[in-house]
């Protein structure tokens, strides 16, 4: 079979060791540098020691998340309680005239939207994508917020499937402060812990509203996905 043929060719090719000189180049640098040990720990650590520093405390993380969100044009709102999250959502509803709202079975989401006077579409079981497309907004949970990149980390479990967070023109994420982590590696670790050997089929880091700059490098939001991204974090 082709599998054996290709793997065989790879093995044969690799029977000759990489030229030492070329291998060295990838390690050299004109500056003197700290280089961490190779292997998984070395690289996870690299994420901490080489990538941008965003502090240790929750306050630091929120501050960093805020700065990047501004740049990304993500609307990042920190509210004290679930109650205030409800109010925020209701204000958003009025402002953007939401009538149909996509949601899913998610404790935090459910408790935030239970009083919204709108029509709901729940994507936690079979649903019609055409109906979802007609929704004004999709409201979902997430697995983590990543301080280093201002991303919301979602899976199809935490975000009501693959499409809820990308098909409607506005995506709202609700999260609580305990979900804020430092790096993407921390985010992966959380998912690893939660799902162990049964990974969800879809994981995504969402970093700002959909965008393109394909025409003369001019930034346009909402190329195909949501034009707006709102992240509401409950701090208590």
């Amino acid at each position: 079979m082709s599998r054996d043929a290709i793997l065989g060719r790879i093995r044969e090719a690799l029977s000759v060791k990489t030229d030492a000189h070329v291998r060295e180049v990838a390690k050299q640098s004109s500056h003197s540098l700290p280089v961490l040990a190779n292997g998984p720990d070395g690289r996870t650590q690299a994420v901490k020691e080489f990538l941008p520093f965003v502090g240790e405390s929750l306050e630091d993380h929120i501050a960093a998340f805020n700065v990047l969100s501004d740049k990304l044009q993500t609307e990042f709102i920190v509210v004290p309680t679930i109650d205030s999250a409800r109010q925020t959502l209701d204000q958003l509803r009025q402002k953007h005239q939401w009538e149909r709202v996509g949601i899913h079975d998610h404790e935090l989401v459910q408790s935030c939207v239970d009083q919204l006077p709108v029509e709901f579409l729940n994507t936690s079981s079979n649903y019609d994508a055409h109906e979802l497309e007609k929704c004004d907004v999709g409201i979902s949970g997430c697995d983590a917020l990543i301080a280093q990149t201002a991303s919301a980390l979602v899976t199809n479990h935490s975000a009501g499937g693959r499409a809820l967070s990308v098909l409607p023109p506005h995506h709202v994420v609700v999260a609580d402060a305990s979900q804020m982590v430092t790096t993407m590696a921390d985010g992966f670790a959380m998912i690893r812990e939660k799902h162990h050997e049964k990974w969800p089929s879809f994981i995504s880091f969402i970093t700002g509203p959909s965008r393109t700059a394909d025409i003369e490098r001019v930034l346009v939001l909402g190329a195909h996905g949501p034009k707006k991204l709102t992240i509401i974090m409950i701090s208590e």
Partner: protein
Amino acid sequence: MSQSTNPTTQFQTDANRVTADVDRRSFLRSSLRGYQTTRDATQERFLNYESARIAAGDAKWEAIENLDVYLAQFADKLEARGATVHWCSDSAEARDAILDIIKKHDAKSVIKSKCMTTEEIHLNDLLEKEGFEVVESDLGEFIVQLRDEAPYHFVFPAMHLKKEEINTLFQEKLKSINTDDPEELTMVAREVLRQKYLSADIGISGANFGVAETGMISITENEGNARLTTSLPKVHIALMGIEKIIPRLEDLALMLPMLATAGTGQHLTCYNSQLGGPRQDDESDGPVEMHVVLLDNHRTRLLADPEQRDALRCIRCGACLNVCPIFKNVGGHTYGTTYQGPIGSVITPHLRGLKDWKHLSHSSSLCGACSETCPVKIDLHHHLLRNRRDAAGKGQGGLAERTLMLGFTIVMRRPWLYRLTGRLGKLGHVLTKPIHGTRIDPFYAWKKTRDLDDPAKQSFKQYWKSRK
């Protein structure tokens, strides 16, 4: 880019045309300058960008040097979760595999998100010939597809076009309103494509990485088109080169920011999604089938080269194009390859034959800007040199060049002859004065655009003697 002319001639001709187009060149340059400014600022945020490059480069070395193990692991994990993996030795096999899946589902329309590998195997041509509707959903790709053109740059496919040209195109092909506002133009495309996602039977994507440990592909994008392509149609086909593997999931935490920083200057692109398998039992949407088509297509030939397998570590960020003075002045189409710029010049001779593509290795001043910027530290410009060595070793330089080099060696090893040549050169310079500026002047290629100083009256050697 006609297929009939040989690649070297086509390159020279197109290079002549583009370098003469001062306006287009400065348009390219100014847009790449914008890229450079954003990227520099993003790099600045790193605690240590140099070390991050080394670490990212290491992750890819580990993958490439153990590719057999990791690739098998990747496939096994994916299959365990219900995906089908197809192993294809060349373009034809990959095309057949994809066509089979599409036919089996009785599909009519196909939506695609950006995937250079499908360009490599000329998938669109085949599918259209077979009567399927194929729509590129990435905005840049969508634009070049409407123009019936190849992508200009493998990260910025439509970077050569001005908004006025896109306006004309959209009016003509989409009957759209008259506007050259990039936002309005984008919205025109958005509306057209929305409907396609909902109705397409098949979604085809590429993959930026394949995670061996967990059996997932990772797709990096900004627009959300890849997410829609892999969420809505009932079948998802991903085509990926076998070199895209990385060992562990956590490696992405480094690779994704590196790809974004080097690629577009963003700290992270908008969507970075990992897909492992079709819709699972406890999930509410997603394709019912997922196929991953693995493509060799001479990558193993490159892998067998103990020096240049280095180039298989490429994460296709496009940074080397963005800083390359050759790319900036000849543009993307001149290359005539799927992968443009320095990385294209390095790998194309391996993928498609050195004899026809060695000119790409010579069309470089070896300035090294590419290697300096590559986020995984591929020794790009030295590989161009190694390609030159291999071409010369096979006698592909031609007789004249070989003779010249032989002469060079003989002269340079004999100081008396070197001196004599210097004097003869001066004499020659005087004797050829009448033909200077004409085509038979031995320095014609130089002097057409540049002056050449008259040789110094006194050589340094003579001066040195007189000093004593």
